[in-house]
Protein backbone atom coordinates (compact mmCIF):
# COMPACT_ATOMS: atom_id res chain seq x y z
CA UNK A 1 0.00 0.00 0.00
CA UNK A 2 1.46 3.31 -0.83
CA UNK A 3 1.45 6.27 1.43
CA UNK A 4 -0.60 9.24 0.36
CA UNK A 5 1.45 12.32 -0.29
CA UNK A 6 -0.43 14.21 2.34
CA UNK A 7 1.24 12.06 4.91
CA UNK A 8 4.63 13.41 4.06
CA UNK A 9 3.27 16.89 3.97
CA UNK A 10 1.68 16.60 7.34
CA UNK A 11 4.82 15.16 8.81
CA UNK A 12 6.80 18.04 7.43
CA UNK A 13 4.34 20.50 8.91
CA UNK A 14 4.65 18.94 12.31
CA UNK A 15 8.44 18.89 12.13
CA UNK A 16 8.33 22.56 11.18
CA UNK A 17 6.17 23.39 14.16
CA UNK A 18 8.50 21.56 16.46
CA UNK A 19 11.35 23.57 15.06
CA UNK A 20 9.43 26.82 15.72
CA UNK A 21 8.81 25.88 19.27
CA UNK A 22 12.44 25.11 19.75
CA UNK A 23 13.55 28.38 18.20
CA UNK A 24 11.35 30.44 20.44
CA UNK A 25 11.76 28.51 23.64
CA UNK A 26 15.39 27.60 23.99
CA UNK A 27 17.92 29.67 25.79
CA UNK A 28 21.13 28.58 24.26
CA UNK A 29 22.02 30.10 20.94
CA UNK A 30 23.25 26.80 19.56
CA UNK A 31 19.96 25.16 20.40
CA UNK A 32 18.09 27.84 18.57
CA UNK A 33 20.31 27.33 15.60
CA UNK A 34 19.62 23.62 15.65
CA UNK A 35 15.91 24.30 15.67
CA UNK A 36 16.33 26.50 12.65
CA UNK A 37 18.08 23.70 10.84
CA UNK A 38 15.20 21.47 11.74
CA UNK A 39 12.81 23.95 10.16
CA UNK A 40 14.88 24.03 7.02
CA UNK A 41 14.84 20.31 6.86
CA UNK A 42 11.08 20.25 7.16
CA UNK A 43 10.81 22.66 4.30
CA UNK A 44 13.03 20.46 2.20
CA UNK A 45 10.82 17.52 2.94
CA UNK A 46 7.81 19.45 1.78
CA UNK A 47 9.54 20.35 -1.40
CA UNK A 48 10.47 16.78 -2.05
CA UNK A 49 6.90 15.67 -1.51
CA UNK A 50 5.56 18.23 -3.92
CA UNK A 51 8.20 17.43 -6.42
CA UNK A 52 7.08 13.83 -6.32
CA UNK A 53 3.45 14.81 -6.50
CA UNK A 54 3.82 16.99 -9.52
CA UNK A 55 6.53 15.02 -11.20
CA UNK A 56 8.50 18.19 -11.56
CA UNK A 57 12.22 17.93 -10.97
CA UNK A 58 12.46 21.62 -10.22
CA UNK A 59 11.62 20.79 -6.65
CA UNK A 60 14.68 18.62 -6.42
CA UNK A 61 16.76 21.47 -7.75
CA UNK A 62 15.46 23.78 -5.09
CA UNK A 63 16.30 21.29 -2.42
CA UNK A 64 19.76 21.11 -3.81
CA UNK A 65 20.22 24.80 -3.60
CA UNK A 66 18.58 25.02 -0.23
CA UNK A 67 21.02 22.51 1.05
CA UNK A 68 23.94 24.57 -0.20
CA UNK A 69 22.57 27.75 1.23
CA UNK A 70 21.99 26.06 4.55
CA UNK A 71 25.61 25.10 4.59
CA UNK A 72 26.72 28.64 3.93
CA UNK A 73 24.39 29.99 6.51
CA UNK A 74 25.52 27.52 9.10
CA UNK A 75 29.12 28.45 8.52
CA UNK A 76 28.57 32.14 8.90
CA UNK A 77 26.23 31.74 11.82
CA UNK A 78 28.63 29.61 13.76
CA UNK A 79 31.38 32.07 13.04
CA UNK A 80 29.18 34.73 14.54
CA UNK A 81 28.65 32.59 17.58
CA UNK A 82 32.35 32.36 18.03
CA UNK A 83 32.66 36.10 17.70
CA UNK A 84 29.93 36.71 20.25
CA UNK A 85 31.42 34.26 22.64
CA UNK A 86 34.74 36.01 22.41
CA UNK A 87 33.09 39.30 23.34
CA UNK A 88 30.53 38.35 25.86
CA UNK A 89 31.66 34.96 27.08
CA UNK A 90 28.11 33.69 26.76
CA UNK A 91 25.71 32.13 24.28
CA UNK A 92 22.76 32.65 26.52
CA UNK A 93 20.22 34.55 24.45
CA UNK A 94 18.73 36.14 27.50
CA UNK A 95 22.07 37.72 28.29
CA UNK A 96 22.68 38.95 24.76
CA UNK A 97 20.41 41.91 25.29
CA UNK A 98 22.24 44.89 23.83
CA UNK A 99 19.06 45.88 22.01
CA UNK A 100 17.19 46.32 25.23
CA UNK A 101 16.56 49.88 26.26
Amino acid at each position, binding site marked *: MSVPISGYLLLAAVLFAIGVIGALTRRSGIAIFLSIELMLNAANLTLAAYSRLLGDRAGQMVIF*FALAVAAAEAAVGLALFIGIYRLRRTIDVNRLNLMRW
Partner: protein
Amino acid sequence: MEAAVFLLFGLVALVSAIMVVAHRNPVYATMSLVVTLVATAVLFVLLGSPFLAALQILLYTGAILVLFLFVIMLLNIGRERPSGARTTAQTWGSVLLALLLAGSLCRLLWDAHSDSVPAPLEVQFTSLRGVSDLLFSTYLLPFEMIGLLLLVAVVAASWVARRAEGEPPVDPEEERP
Protein backbone atom coordinates in the same frame (compact mmCIF):
# COMPACT_ATOMS: atom_id res chain seq x y z
CA MET B 1 5.93 -1.89 2.34
CA GLU B 2 6.40 1.70 1.68
CA ALA B 3 3.93 2.52 4.36
CA ALA B 4 5.86 0.60 6.93
CA VAL B 5 9.07 2.35 6.12
CA PHE B 6 7.34 5.66 6.12
CA LEU B 7 5.76 5.08 9.47
CA LEU B 8 8.92 3.84 11.03
CA PHE B 9 11.22 6.54 9.86
CA GLY B 10 8.56 9.17 10.20
CA LEU B 11 8.20 8.28 13.81
CA VAL B 12 11.93 8.29 14.27
CA ALA B 13 12.14 11.71 12.74
CA LEU B 14 9.39 13.01 14.95
CA VAL B 15 10.82 11.64 18.13
CA SER B 16 14.30 12.81 17.49
CA ALA B 17 13.01 16.23 16.49
CA ILE B 18 11.35 16.49 19.83
CA MET B 19 14.58 15.45 21.43
CA VAL B 20 16.44 18.15 19.57
CA VAL B 21 14.15 20.72 21.01
CA ALA B 22 13.99 19.23 24.44
CA HIS B 23 17.52 18.18 25.34
CA ARG B 24 19.48 20.55 27.51
CA ASN B 25 22.81 19.17 26.54
CA PRO B 26 23.86 20.67 23.24
CA VAL B 27 25.77 17.65 22.11
CA TYR B 28 22.82 15.39 22.64
CA ALA B 29 20.66 17.84 20.83
CA THR B 30 23.00 17.90 17.89
CA MET B 31 23.11 14.16 17.73
CA SER B 32 19.35 14.03 17.80
CA LEU B 33 19.30 16.34 14.88
CA VAL B 34 21.60 13.99 13.05
CA VAL B 35 19.12 11.21 13.58
CA THR B 36 16.33 13.39 12.32
CA LEU B 37 18.22 14.29 9.23
CA VAL B 38 19.06 10.72 8.44
CA ALA B 39 15.45 9.68 8.84
CA THR B 40 14.50 12.48 6.53
CA ALA B 41 17.01 11.23 4.04
CA VAL B 42 15.26 7.89 4.02
CA LEU B 43 12.03 9.65 3.37
CA PHE B 44 13.65 11.39 0.48
CA VAL B 45 14.43 8.01 -0.98
CA LEU B 46 10.83 7.00 -0.55
CA LEU B 47 9.91 10.09 -2.45
CA GLY B 48 12.05 9.18 -5.37
CA SER B 49 15.11 11.35 -4.78
CA PRO B 50 17.95 9.06 -3.79
CA PHE B 51 20.53 11.55 -4.94
CA LEU B 52 19.20 14.15 -2.58
CA ALA B 53 19.12 11.65 0.21
CA ALA B 54 22.76 11.01 -0.33
CA LEU B 55 23.51 14.69 -0.51
CA GLN B 56 21.61 15.27 2.69
CA ILE B 57 23.63 12.76 4.59
CA LEU B 58 26.87 13.86 3.09
CA LEU B 59 26.46 17.57 3.44
CA TYR B 60 24.01 18.17 6.18
CA THR B 61 24.96 15.55 8.64
CA GLY B 62 28.47 14.96 7.46
CA ALA B 63 29.57 18.56 7.21
CA ILE B 64 27.21 21.00 8.78
CA LEU B 65 26.40 19.16 11.94
CA VAL B 66 30.00 18.23 12.33
CA LEU B 67 30.75 21.91 12.20
CA PHE B 68 28.17 22.42 14.91
CA LEU B 69 29.88 19.86 17.04
CA PHE B 70 33.22 21.48 16.47
CA VAL B 71 31.96 24.81 17.64
CA ILE B 72 30.24 23.29 20.65
CA MET B 73 33.46 21.62 21.60
CA LEU B 74 35.49 24.73 20.89
CA LEU B 75 33.39 26.98 23.05
CA ASN B 76 32.82 24.30 25.61
CA ILE B 77 29.16 24.98 25.73
CA GLY B 78 27.64 23.26 28.68
CA ARG B 79 24.24 22.29 29.74
CA GLU B 80 21.69 24.90 29.14
CA ARG B 81 20.17 26.54 32.10
CA PRO B 82 16.49 25.99 32.48
CA SER B 83 13.74 28.55 32.04
CA GLY B 84 14.40 29.52 28.49
CA ALA B 85 12.02 32.32 28.01
CA ARG B 86 11.72 35.35 30.25
CA THR B 87 8.20 34.64 31.20
CA THR B 88 5.96 31.63 31.17
CA ALA B 89 3.69 33.61 28.96
CA GLN B 90 6.31 33.76 26.30
CA THR B 91 6.88 30.01 26.39
CA TRP B 92 3.28 29.10 26.28
CA GLY B 93 2.55 31.80 23.76
CA SER B 94 5.12 30.42 21.40
CA VAL B 95 3.95 26.89 21.86
CA LEU B 96 0.40 27.88 21.27
CA LEU B 97 1.18 29.87 18.19
CA ALA B 98 3.37 27.15 16.78
CA LEU B 99 0.64 24.59 17.32
CA LEU B 100 -1.76 26.96 15.69
CA LEU B 101 0.52 27.23 12.74
CA ALA B 102 0.94 23.51 12.55
CA GLY B 103 -2.74 22.97 12.79
CA SER B 104 -3.45 25.44 10.02
CA LEU B 105 -0.86 23.94 7.79
CA CYS B 106 -2.12 20.48 8.38
CA ARG B 107 -5.62 21.50 7.72
CA LEU B 108 -4.66 23.20 4.54
CA LEU B 109 -2.55 20.38 3.28
CA TRP B 110 -5.09 17.81 4.13
CA ASP B 111 -7.83 19.68 2.36
CA ALA B 112 -5.69 20.15 -0.66
CA HIS B 113 -4.08 16.84 -1.04
CA SER B 114 -5.93 14.21 0.86
CA ASP B 115 -6.68 12.46 -2.35
CA SER B 116 -3.81 13.58 -4.49
CA VAL B 117 -2.14 10.88 -6.46
CA PRO B 118 1.45 11.30 -7.32
CA ALA B 119 2.51 11.15 -10.88
CA PRO B 120 3.99 7.88 -12.07
CA LEU B 121 7.61 7.57 -11.32
CA GLU B 122 9.90 8.02 -14.26
CA VAL B 123 13.44 7.04 -14.45
CA GLN B 124 14.25 10.56 -15.40
CA PHE B 125 13.00 11.65 -12.06
CA THR B 126 14.97 9.42 -9.80
CA SER B 127 18.18 8.85 -11.60
CA LEU B 128 21.28 10.84 -11.01
CA ARG B 129 21.45 11.41 -14.70
CA GLY B 130 18.14 13.16 -14.63
CA VAL B 131 19.19 15.41 -11.82
CA SER B 132 22.49 16.34 -13.34
CA ASP B 133 20.93 16.96 -16.73
CA LEU B 134 18.69 19.54 -15.22
CA LEU B 135 21.34 20.95 -12.99
CA PHE B 136 23.80 21.65 -15.74
CA SER B 137 21.38 22.98 -18.26
CA THR B 138 18.46 24.97 -17.01
CA TYR B 139 19.89 25.58 -13.59
CA LEU B 140 23.44 26.21 -14.53
CA LEU B 141 23.50 29.82 -13.47
CA PRO B 142 22.12 29.18 -9.99
CA PHE B 143 24.59 26.37 -9.69
CA GLU B 144 27.48 28.67 -10.36
CA MET B 145 26.07 31.29 -8.07
CA ILE B 146 25.87 28.78 -5.32
CA GLY B 147 29.56 28.32 -5.72
CA LEU B 148 30.07 32.03 -5.36
CA LEU B 149 27.83 32.07 -2.35
CA LEU B 150 29.84 29.40 -0.68
CA LEU B 151 33.01 31.30 -1.37
CA VAL B 152 31.55 34.40 0.21
CA ALA B 153 30.38 32.41 3.17
CA VAL B 154 33.80 30.92 3.71
CA VAL B 155 35.49 34.28 3.57
CA ALA B 156 32.93 35.85 5.86
CA ALA B 157 33.08 33.07 8.37
CA SER B 158 36.85 33.16 8.49
CA TRP B 159 36.89 36.85 9.01
CA VAL B 160 34.19 37.02 11.62
CA ALA B 161 35.69 34.26 13.68
CA ARG B 162 39.23 35.55 13.54
CA ARG B 163 41.21 36.27 16.59
CA ALA B 164 42.05 39.92 16.91
CA GLU B 165 45.62 41.15 17.58
CA GLY B 166 46.84 40.27 21.01
CA GLU B 167 43.70 38.48 22.02
CA PRO B 168 44.26 35.28 23.96
CA PRO B 169 42.75 32.09 22.54
CA VAL B 170 39.57 30.79 24.01
CA ASP B 171 40.40 28.74 27.04
CA PRO B 172 38.52 25.43 27.22
CA GLU B 173 39.17 25.19 30.94
CA GLU B 174 37.28 28.40 31.53
CA GLU B 175 33.95 28.55 33.26
CA ARG B 176 31.25 27.15 31.01
CA PRO B 177 28.90 29.67 29.45
